[in-house]
């Protein structure tokens, strides 16, 4: 039986520890614990190990992120944050989880029970599926899909469906409001988000995330500054983070689409959102900051480099959340269509022209974009980014619109003389 995940170091380690034998000697290089003919056990155990690590890693990461976000948000607001349980309050997520687990799990009488129950599952599932293609270190990924970038976009868009299901199934007006807002916003932000990734794919010449990492002689945040900006802001909207959190705006619509959720379902939705930030930071680090490649020892310390880059983006997300107030729906739409979309288009066009010429330089088939060519692209794209941000920032400025309909045209207001 040929192992499915040949490149994954963890998978190969577990598989060979259990099922190494003569049949896969050139691959494993030693005998395993199990006798011959039992490779299928090793196959399943290794697969389950990977799944266990991935799922629990995501949930544990979400817990740590909850703590980190609360601490950092507090520091941004000159407070201290949770500091009661454990050193620096690091055990606070456990307390939160215990609280949520022992809470009553209410399903409203009018709710659509099946859809209502499916929502947390779908939200968490879309997140965990998107983690499958994320390279954490060299040869440490679940699958090296050759359509990895497309897969991420496709899988993470399922959250939109889950949000709308939550709003519809809750039979609650606030939940419905939140879901409608969410769908409106998320559909708009998909477009610049996907367009911003096209530049990366063009330069790397592949949609596989591993190829994207290997193509980054220079971090793509320099080669693709506009793409990185648009992706960062777009994914920030996709994750419903604070400048764009109109779909769970606490001060307007109780908790938006998850108004009716409590207990473990609420915990799962929150975990999916929080781990979503981690996943988004991971994608940002992979696509625009070189993933597991570092200045030195990329092979040995790949996971460390990746974690550092991921933490950088996590910090950025928290910083943005701590700073900006919630936007109105029209401001959000204007931002997506008048600002992010043109920038993504400019980035796409500029990158396409550059890649065409550099590919032409190599010969008929567009080849690999080399380090020097990436420096040239950075030198062109960074000023272009600044110029287009300034220009479209000016165009996209939203004035306050006075409604055209005047009150008198709806309700006739009697004049004082007529009353007399």
């Amino acid at each position, binding site marked *: 039986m040929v192992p499915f995940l040949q490149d994954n170091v963890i998978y190969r380690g577990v598989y060979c520890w259990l099922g190494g034998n003569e049949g896969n000697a050139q691959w494993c290089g030693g005998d395993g614990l199990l006798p011959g003919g039992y490779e299928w056990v090793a196959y399943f155990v290794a697969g389950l190990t990977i799944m266990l690590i991935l799922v629990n890693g995501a949930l544990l990461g979400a817990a740590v992120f909850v703590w980190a976000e609360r601490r950092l948000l507090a*520091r941004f607001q*000159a407070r*201290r944050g949770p500091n009661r349980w454990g050193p620096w309050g690091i055990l606070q997520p456990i307390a939160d989880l215990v609280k949520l687990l022992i809470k009553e799990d209410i399903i409203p009488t009018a709710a659509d029970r099946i859809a209502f129950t499916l929502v947390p599952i779908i939200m968490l599932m879309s997140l965990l599926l998107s983690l499958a293609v994320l390279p954490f270190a060299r040869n440490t990924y679940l699958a090296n899909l050759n359509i990895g970038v497309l897969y991420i976009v496709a899988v993470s868009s399922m959250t939109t469906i889950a949000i709308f299901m939550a709003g519809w199934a809750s039979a609650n007006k606030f939940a419905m409001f939140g879901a409608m807002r969410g769908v409106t916003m998320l559909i708009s932000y998909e477009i610049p988000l996907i367009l911003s990734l096209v530049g990366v794919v063009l330069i790397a010449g592949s949609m596989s995330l591993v190829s994207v990492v290997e193509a980054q002689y220079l971090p793509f945040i320099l080669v693709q500054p506009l793409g990185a900006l648009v992706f960062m802001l777009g994914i920030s909207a996709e994750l419903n983070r604070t400048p764009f959190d109109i779909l769970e705006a606490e001060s307007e619509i109780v908790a938006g689409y998850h108004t009716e959720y409590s207990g473990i379902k609420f915990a799962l939705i929150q975990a999916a959102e929080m781990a979503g930030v981690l996943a988004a930071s991971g994608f940002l680090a992979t696509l625009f900051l070189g993933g597991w490649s570092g200045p030195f020892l990329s092979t040995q310390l790949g996971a460390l480099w990746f974690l550092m880059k991921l933490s950088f983006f996590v910090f950025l997300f928290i910083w943005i959340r701590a*700073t*900006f107030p919630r936007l109105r729906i029209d401001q959000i739409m204007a931002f997506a269509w008048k600002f992010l979309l043109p920038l993504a288009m400019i980035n796409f066009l500029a990158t396409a022209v550059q890649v065409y010429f550099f590919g032409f330089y190599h010969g008929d088939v567009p080849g690999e974009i080399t380090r020097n060519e990436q420096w040239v692209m950075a030198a062109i794209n960074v000023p272009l980014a600044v110029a287009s941000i*300034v220009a479209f*920032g*000016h165009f*996209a400025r939203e004035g306050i619109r006075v409604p055209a309909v005047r009150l008198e045209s709806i309700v006739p207001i009697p004049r004082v003389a007529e009353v007399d």
Partner: protein
Amino acid sequence: MYGLGLAKGLMVTMKNFIRPPFTVQYPEERLPQHPRFRGEEFVWYDERCTGCASCAKYCPLGIIKIVTSPSETAVLEGDKYDIEVFDIDIGRCMFCGLCVEACPYDALFMGSGFERGRYQRKDLVISVDELRQAVKRPSTWFRPQLENARYDPQEGEPLAWEDVGREKWPWHKQEKAGAKINRTVHRGGAESSQDKK
């Protein structure tokens, strides 16, 4: 230019991030308290109090209850009363301090405490025994003599009744109510003073 406001906002939060937090971890850390604090746990000096009940009369909420009994011999001489009940219901008190302002003999002072949470309302009533036995660190609110002496109710020693008044009354203790004063009472004199009115 568009976007500079965003950068400015980010810099504001970053400044807060670098600055140490100014939250005080209350039960472990405390901020210095002003000596003029108007807190719970009134400080009351039995020796100075004449039982005139000015405090009870001035109280806008009517939460001070005073029951006095006249000493049998010296009432008409204008002598002191024995205080049997001095209940201050601090559950309803708003700490305006009018009772302290009203006291003509500097017998009542505000305290400095603020941690008198109780499970039942009746426990919030300060009784006369409690007032007598309390450690007496009066707040300097409306008491310029304490303020001029730079008395600090947090750090300073508990004050005796002789030290807190505007002037010392060395005779006061002996003439305290309840103590039978060995002196003749001229009832006629009191009547004549009423006649004059």
